[in-house]
């Protein structure tokens, strides 16, 4: 592992994606403001053009511009990450200084890269697709206030997208719990506003409020947990926390602190019972944003959980298995069951997808539980955490592919929203007749979510199950009672999958069987951007399901990079 200091040359190379984001952010703020603005030299009548404000140029006043800037930035960042992954990344640790007592700030390795991939990929798709979702009312410099205002908001929206991305990547990179928290808050604040972006509707404003309030409480709790951990360990550096936990991990203070922090991240991954705001937020937000919440934001929460639970309260620092094992197992079981049961009767496709995302959180938590359990079988210890590695790979893989089919599903709903409404199941009615390809895409997303082969969702779910079972089975088990109880989580998971098929399939039935709603017989609004995004999602969903080996390898090396110390 190489180390470097902040603002060194390696630092810039390694953080290229984030810097791109930053540049894009600046561009987004500046470019729409470029205009024929002048600056009067005080005391004179001389007006010097300083190109800010005033009447905008034709190009800079173009409301499509922010979207393109954001999309290109995010795509560039995505590609940069992908490029760095392609060559196989060495870990790079960014220290605060080159002194001995310097603190670890950021860690760029496979693990963080994969998450960056998830974040930027999801955000890029969402912002690309949002071009069709956020309507541009008029183009040009000379418009009435109403329209100018709307155009202005275009820029706001994409700025928030970029800040969100920036915050998330900080979360992925952070080596200090507080840095992680700052990143989390940055991303959270952005998402609060993004959710509330449709503030001119009742649902939008309400969704933003709920997401904000519950999110704030959760982060308040999390911050309090942080403060307790700080009180306990005297530092929020992960390595320090981990080392301290290994020696005095069973004291009440760190346990309470971890519990608090768990709540904070639990909200982000929408684990039950912290998920309540999620369905409301998804329902009120515009669909691409909801898609981001369900994929990137969830992945961000998972980063936090992984760091907290696997690095700090590492399983091997406790006897047998991690202290939080039972707690997380219960949480996982509750989350997946709750999510699926709630989705079962939901007639709003967005809420249905929200609950399904809760269920998926449950699956991921189940996987995480298994990681916590891998040390139970002493013979695993000799295998350098092979079992844990497998689950972790599965988790990462699941989060990667989830972007394709979860976001894809939301994007399909996004087109329907542009058509009028997507808050009823019947909005999807007759989609197969209206837009056969879209219906086909949606069907692919649905069965992938349900975990039907050969879609990516099947492979990822299989991987998670396999990881759990691997831990559960241990070595030399001869009967069910020899298994670790996490095996039963796998059983619960497959049964939940079976339940989930019901509501996923209902979407398919509505699309292929039911008649369209009154007055919605024709084709959907056009918009090649969103359709391209959906197409990309379909492609990834199918291809990764069939030829996902390279992605799998990537996730594996990412997981390895997290666990090099195991």
């Amino acid at each position: 592992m190489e180390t470097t200091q902040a603002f060194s040359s390696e630092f810039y190379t390694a953080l290229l994606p984030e810097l791109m984001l930053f540049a894009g952010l600046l561009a987004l703020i500046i470019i729409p403001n470029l205009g024929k603005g002048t600056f009067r030299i005080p005391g004179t009548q001389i007006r010097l053009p300083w190109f800010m404000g005033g009447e905008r140029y034709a190009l800079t006043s173009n409301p499509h511009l922010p979207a393109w800037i954001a999309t290109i930035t995010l795509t560039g960042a995505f590609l940069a990450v992908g490029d760095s992954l392609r060559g196989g990344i060495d870990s790079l640790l960014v220290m605060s200084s080159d002194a001995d007592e310097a603190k670890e700030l950021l860690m760029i390795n496979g693990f963080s890269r994969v998450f960056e991939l998830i974040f930027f990929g999801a955000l890029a798709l969402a912002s690309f697709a949002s071009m069709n979702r956020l309507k541009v009312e008029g183009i040009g410099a000379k418009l009435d206030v109403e329209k100018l205002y709307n155009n202005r908001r275009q820029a706001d929206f994409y700025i928030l997208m970029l800040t969100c991305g920036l915050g998330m990547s900080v979360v992925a990179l952070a080596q200090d719990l507080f840095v992680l928290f700052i990143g989390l808050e940055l991303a959270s604040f952005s998402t609060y506003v993004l959710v509330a972006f449709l503030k001119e509707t009742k649902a939008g404003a309400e969704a933003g409020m709920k997401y904000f309030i519950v999110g704030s409480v959760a982060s308040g709790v999390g911050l309090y947990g942080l403060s307790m951990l700080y009180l306990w360990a005297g530092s929020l550096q992960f390595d320090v926390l981990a080392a301290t936990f290994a020696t005095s991990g069973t004291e009440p203070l760190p346990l309470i602190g971890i519990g608090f922090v768990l709540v904070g991240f639990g909200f982000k991954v929408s684990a039950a019972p912290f998920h309540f705001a999620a369905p409301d937020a998804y329902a009120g937000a515009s669909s691409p944003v909801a898609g981001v919440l369900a994929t990137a934001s969830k992945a961000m929460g998972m980063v936090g959980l992984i760091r907290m639970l696997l690095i700090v309260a590492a399983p091997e620092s406790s006897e047998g298995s991690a202290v939080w094992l039972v707690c997380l197992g219960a949480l996982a079981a509750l989350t997946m069951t709750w999510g699926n049961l709630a989705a079962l009767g939901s007639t709003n496709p967005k809420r249905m997808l929200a609950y399904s995302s809760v269920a998926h959180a449950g699956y991921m938590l189940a996987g995480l539980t298994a990681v916590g359990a891998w040390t139970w079988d002493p013979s695993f210890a000799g295998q350098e955490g092979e079992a844990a590695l497998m689950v972790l790979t599965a988790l990462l893989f699941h989060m990667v592919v989830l972007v394709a089919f979860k976001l894809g599903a939301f994007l399909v709903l996004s087109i329907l929203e542009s058509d009028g409404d997507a808050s009823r199941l019947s909005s999807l009615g007759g989609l197969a007749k209206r837009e056969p390809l879209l219906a086909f895409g949606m069907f692919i997303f649905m069965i992938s979510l349900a975990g039907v082969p050969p879609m990516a969702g099947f492979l990822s779910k299989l991987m998670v199950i396999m990881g759990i079972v691997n831990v559960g089975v241990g070595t030399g088990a001869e009967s069910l009672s020899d298994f670790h109880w996490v095996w039963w989580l796998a059983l619960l998971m497959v049964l939940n999958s079976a339940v989930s098929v019901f509501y996923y399939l209902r979407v398919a039935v509505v699309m292929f069987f039911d008649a369209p709603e009154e007055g919605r017989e024709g084709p959907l609004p056009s918009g090649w951007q969103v359709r391209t995004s959906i197409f990309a999602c379909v492609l990834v969903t199918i291809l990764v399901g069939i030829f996902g080996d390279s992605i799998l390898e990537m996730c594996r090396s990412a997981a390895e990079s997290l666990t090099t110390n195991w």
Partner: protein
Amino acid sequence: MIDPALVSGLSALMFVIGLGGAFTRKNAIIVLMCIELMLNAANMQFAAAAVYHGDTTGWVYTIFAIAIAASEVAIGLAIFLAMYGQHDTISLDDVAVLKN
């Protein structure tokens, strides 16, 4: 110097009050205040811990946390404003178009 334990205790009290208030009060502004209370409980604990450990990072954390709290209030109030514009109320119980 005040015993950090006392400060911690106070912060715990503040936290509990904040959390309790957050789910007992209907008025969104009051809930926001309660959330601030929770954040400040954390701040206080950070400060106390910084003192206890003699670690300056804790102060930095506190300052950052205050900044976070501030921006949170800003965002929150903006969202409440938008909500009021649509629902004509800031009572959390009455804003329940989305449910189930």
